[in-house]
């Protein structure tokens, strides 16, 4: 690739990886963008990504080719491999010769599978911001000892950009979700008051008695209080909620 074209692609890659807040965001699509740029810009044969979920489990495998996708899955299934180690150790792994004794000893099943898929070298860099790792990026080459340090460094730079993009997006998502929860909580409070008032008027009871009745009904029918109150106001609540309170039986 000519230098000007490569520079332009590099700039494009960093822009793509930062641009997570406009339009729809799908993590899998975004990780494909990352692996595509990595393969285009670095001297590597293939790239894959493994993400860590909130509970520390490895999830969300993405890769530039089908065979690497399988290799990432192998790491999850056998709980061994450079991506897995990189996720848990929060630092880059390799490059390692896949037929060398170190790799064979450390990841017996993974290195066998990788060699079978035609790869000679592997490296992994973390998707990391300060202390937090959210996943790792695997780089594969077909020749042994073929991954040069410059490629690994650039891989780390792209992984850093992607991490910032993903964390921005997560933050924006969390906040949007909380705005929704706030609105829901407020609406819920209001509709409960409205339903109380409705029963007050319909049954000539006090607001406290109305609330007790609504709560008992919701509990007996295992329905959410808010949902029941919405049904009261829409006229679709069960009729027994409106049964006239029985007058106390006079003592004979």
């Amino acid at each position, binding site marked *: 690739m000519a230098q000007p074209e490569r520079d332009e692609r590099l700039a494009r890659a960093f822009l793509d990886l930062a641009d997570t807040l406009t339009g729809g965001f799908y993590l899998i699509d975004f990780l494909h963008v990352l692996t595509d740029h990595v393969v285009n810009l670095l001297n590597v044969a293939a790239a894959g990504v493994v993400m860590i979920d909130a509970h520390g489990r490895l999830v969300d495998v993405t890769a530039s080719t089908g065979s690497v996708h399988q290799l990432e899955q192998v790491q999850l299934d056998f709980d061994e491999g450079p991506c897995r180690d990189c996720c848990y150790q929060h630092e880059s792994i390799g490059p390692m010769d896949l037929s060398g004794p170190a790799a064979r000893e450390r990841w017996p099943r993974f290195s066998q599978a990788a060699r079978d898929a035609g790869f000679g070298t592997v490296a992994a860099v973390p998707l990391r911001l300060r202390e937090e790792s959210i996943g790792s990026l695997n780089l594969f080459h077909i020749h042994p000892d073929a991954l040069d340090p410059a490629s690994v460094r650039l891989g780390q730079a792209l992984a850093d950009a992607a991490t910032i993009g993903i964390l921005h997006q997560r933050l924006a998502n969390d*906040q949007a979700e909380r705005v929704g929860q*706030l609105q829901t*909580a*407020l609406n819920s*409070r*209001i509709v409960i008051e*409205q339903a109380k*008032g409705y029963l007050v008027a319909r049954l000539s009871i006090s*607001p406290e008695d109305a609330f007790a009745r609504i709560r008992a009904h919701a509990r007996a029918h295992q329905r959410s209080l808010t949902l029941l109150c919405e049904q009261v106001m829409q006229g679709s609540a069960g009729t027994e909620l409106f049964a006239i309170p029985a007058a106390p039986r006079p003592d004979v």
Partner: protein
Amino acid sequence: MSTTASDLAALLAAASQSAQGLGALPPARCAAALALDGLTISLINHSGLELVWSDPADTPGIALDDLQYTLGEGPTLDAAHTGRPTIVPDLHAMPETRWPALLPALHDHPVRAVFALPLHLGVIRLGVLTGRRGTPGPLHRAQMTDALALAEAATVILLTPDGVHDIGSNDPLPLHRALIHQATGALSYRLGVSLTDALARLRAYAYTNDRPILDVAHDVIHHRLHLGSVFK
């Protein structure tokens, strides 16, 4: 000014560490730190604004909010609708056409200056922080900076899980207009109209009879006001 600013910083720090939502932020002390007479926060909801944060002793501030709710106009509502601060250094200097129903109603009110700042997250409008003062005059630059910082901090506190929780539970953030929503539900049954219409009639009655809307709502719920014919 520097002492009040550090008061405010201490109040905000304490509230955000308490994990008790807005309930941990004392409105009267925040108002004092900003050299204002009162502060309220209302949240935007599809049926209007809900007053969720005020000092129970702040009668003029609560009355100002209720009046705006009844009349459907005022600086707090403007800030909610436009998403921009509405600064009124002197209510008496405003042309009556700006808020034709509210301004006459506020004439005998101990409120001269109102500062309404929107609470927002990006383009999402959440609510309004409203400050008031009994004397006319602008907000100084430092006061404005503090008021904006308070608005921002209140937004953050509201958006913590505890901020939501407090509104969902009954205690630290009681819904000031709960009784109005009860009365709306009651009227919708008695008059056989939608909730929107029931609320409109409640507001209209309060306005035409020159009574606080909460008093009217109380009478509706406690059967002292059989509104059938009055509202029709």
